């Protein structure tokens, strides 16, 4: 098959590179969502620790 002229080949090349970029972006955004969940869980955990400390303090008083 003869080589495609630049005008016709351009969109295909752009599409291929955009697919690569999109895959990486989707992956990073999914990982960012998971990171948000981890952050929330750490918040819950520190709340739990604070509550325990308060309870211990009250028991001592």
């Amino acid at each position, binding site marked *: *098959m003869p*080589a*495609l*002229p*630049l005008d*016709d*080949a*351009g969109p*295909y*090349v752009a*599409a*291929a*590179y955009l*697919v*690569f970029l999109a*895959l*990486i972006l989707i*992956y990073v955004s999914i*990982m960012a969502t*998971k*990171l948000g*969940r*981890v952050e929330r*869980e*750490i918040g*819950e*955990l520190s709340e*739990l*620790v604070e509550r*325990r400390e308060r309870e211990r303090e009250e028991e001592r008083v």
Partner: protein
Amino acid sequence: MTFGRGLRALSIASVVLLTGAFALVFFYAPNDADQGFIQKIFYVHVPLAIVALCGFVAGGVYGIKYLRSGDRADDLRSYVAIHISLILAVGVLITGSIWARAAWGHWWVWDEPTLVSFLIVFLLYACYQPLRFSIEDPERQARYASVFAIVAGAFVPLNFMAVRMAESLTHPRVLSTTGGAMPGDMRLTFLVALAGMACLYVTLWKYELASKSASIQLRSLKRRLAGDDGLAPLARSAAPQQL
């Protein structure tokens, strides 16, 4: 256990190498005499394919390590290696199809061994996650998944060699024992793109390992603090849940 060590340096190296590679692709490497501008897809498609296949093999190697040592971290490494490779393999199939459409006039050619063999490898590994998910006991899950990763990992180079020995049809052969037909500037561009893709793979692998390890440790800490009664039982998951 810290999986995130060196992640910053790796991320910077990936960005620099990939940006450099794409700059070389569009401003340095000449257009192919036969295919013209469409050949530029090669610089993203082939490194993706090589790195994805190497990642599948790495998943098998960590599978062997897990079976030898029983260390859950090796199971996690194997799982994440295969997971990232699967994502890259999706990229290989899509970019390959785009190139095929432009070069051959078809999105897919069923009688081309290179394409079909890669699809078989992809579909084989697509079974990995459902296999893990179907097993509830974490010990058995890790063991069976490792055996799968080893067998499938051994299949990858065998499959590659079988395709090389097959009568070549239309898929171009760029890398061969005679060095292929790439001139120096194209070769340099390709090697930089390959190094960038390999770096990106390792970065994503370590990134996901660090994320999964943090989640697992956090859950374990929560369980220790709240006690088993305070939390819902662990939901079934394809990903390793213990370290």
